[in-house]
């Protein structure tokens, strides 16, 4: 008992082994729930998979019917002394079992596109990554400098932030039609949606991070003879860099959430196109696999960036606390 309670001590910064163990558990727990729902017949399973239609004329092998329908038909057949149907409990088509989705991770890449010149999955994924990349780069190109300026000089902040504060409440997808009208139906409007979705948050977050910079640092720099632009380039920027990097990681995740909406605008492309296509053909295992691939790509990038950050900013103390 005592051992178990020790785990609940808040922020006890226990050994790294325990941390990674819990980290893996946080993934295993949902997976366990999914397995239970999929493989244990008496949990949920609202459908019956017909194995032998018996005397029911509209039943076919492999057909999914509601439990109540099956029960009625079974009673019906017994009453009429016809062949009774056989079936086994099953989940609806939209909830494939873990092993099916796991297999789809491979087969989704190897199945030919349904349409002749349609893109393969890896092409779709690559297209999505490019959209995210350009959207985020363009947003950062303007958002980060503006954020730093707004955070450093109050005149910039007061001039830009009220409007940005207002604009960030306008949902980015609302600009979809407009973006298509201006930028055409291909990648332009998609990138624009990601830029609109990211940029305004970015300015505010970066400005806030810059504002949190300890004034003593700035004052010390001033008394050492730092002037104007070097205050910005030699003090403000390096001082906030680790926090800025963290902000950018969070914002990149944000950009991913806009991806699906963005890709629906104009001609549907990328991973979204793949998902909608597969859903149309009821290949839900592929749908789940594709959704998870987005998660893996996003989360994987973030983990990589976090590792890289530790390399880049060896002096950053806040990393030790997490």
């Amino acid at each position: 008992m005592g051992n178990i309670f020790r785990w609940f001590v808040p922020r006890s910064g226990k050994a790294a082994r325990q941390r990674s163990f819990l980290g893996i558990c946080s993934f295993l727990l949902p997976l366990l729930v999914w397995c239970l729902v999929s493989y244990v017949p008496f949990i949920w399973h609202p459908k019956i998979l017909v194995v032998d239609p018996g005397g029911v004329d509209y039943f076919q092998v492999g057909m999914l019917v509601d439990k109540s329908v099956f029960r009625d038909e079974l009673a019906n057949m017994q009453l009429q002394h016809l062949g009774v149907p056989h079936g086994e409990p099953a989940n609806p088509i939209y909830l494939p079992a873990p092993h099916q989705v796991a297999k789809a991770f491979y087969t989704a890449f190897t199945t030919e596109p349904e349409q002749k010149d349609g893109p393969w999955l890896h092409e779709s994924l690559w297209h999505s990554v490019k959209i995210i990349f350009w959207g985020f780069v363009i947003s950062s190109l303007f958002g980060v400098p503006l954020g730093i300026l707004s955070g450093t000089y109050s005149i910039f902040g007061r001039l830009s932030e009220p409007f940005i504060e207002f604009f960030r409440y306008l949902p980015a997808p609302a600009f979809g039609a407009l973006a298509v009208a201006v930028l055409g139906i291909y990648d332009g409007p998609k990138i624009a949606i990601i830029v609109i979705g990211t940029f305004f948050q970015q300015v505010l977050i970066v400005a806030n991070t810059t504002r949190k910079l300890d004034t003593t640092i700035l004052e010390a720099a001033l008394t050492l003879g730092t002037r104007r632009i070097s205050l910005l380039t030699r003090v403000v920027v390096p001082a906030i860099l680790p926090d800025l990097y963290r902000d950018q990681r969070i914002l990149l995740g944000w950009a991913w959430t806009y991806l699906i909406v963005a890709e629906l605008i104009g001609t549907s492309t990328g991973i979204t196109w793949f998902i909608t296509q597969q859903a149309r053909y009821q290949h839900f295992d592929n749908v789940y696999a594709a959704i998870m691939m987005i998660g893996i790509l996003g989360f994987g990038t973030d983990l990589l960036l976090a590792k890289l950050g530790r390399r880049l900013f060896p002096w950053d103390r806040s990393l030790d606390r997490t």
Partner: protein
Amino acid sequence: MNIESTLPGYLEQSDAVRARFDRIRQREIILEVRNLGKHYSSAQGDVEALRDINFKVHRREFICVLGPSGCGKSTLVRTLAGLEKHSSGKVLLDGKPVLGPGQDRGMVFQGYSLFPWLTVKKNVMFGPEMNGRDHDEAERDARLWLDLVGLDKFADAYPHQLSGGMRQRVAIARALVNQPRILLMDEPFGALDAMTRAKMQTHLLDIWRNIDITVLFITHDLDEAIFLADRILVLKAHPGEVQEVIEVPVPRPRSAASLSSPEFRATKARLEELIHPAAAQESEEDQVVKPHMIRFTNVTDNVE
């Protein structure tokens, strides 16, 4: 009381001390503060932080500014550094008015103001580089000053790897490498433990003895002020005004033994009179904060 009667007056100076003060007065004036005043408006209305401050600092003099919290001593030093604007009066450095921060006035802050992203050496090199010195020259100077504060071994460490006392040594080196006319120190040892603080005080006196630097040192610690200063500027609060300027009669060189010398005790007695007046009127905090002591332990369970 009978102890105090045996003490010499704090105004009595031995011949050596008097001669020393005469010599100091003959040196040129580095910093002159004339009728300095500062107002600012706050939620409680117009606040007069400083009123009619006048003093002169001679070259290689060590001045301490002492006062209770809220007396405006930090405002004063920040104004001298050019980090805050004053409302009236003048601050003259070498006869020229101070208009903003500059490398002719070095500053050491109470908090750790080192740049966390730079190594110790790069921190010290920062000033010279900002002032247009080339990299090699700046590095040579940084090495020299780090050696002087005893941290040449830590040149490549980051500030967070150093103890509080070491960080303040770096801060001193970083301020001095610019060769300022005056070193302004805003309670630089306030965050250090007693042992480290005592070491740093001795170290600061060593530095001051060996290089051409004038020091203006802010503190609220009476012992620290007496131990370090040639003259102590005693401020009083609301508004911040100069109450008295005391020439410290404790002879130099000073050591730990100076702390128990009669001159030291006489000066301290005087400072206590000034800062904690006998009929101690309650401070604002005392008026608001009134602990109501409740007995939480058994009546027989006594610790005293």
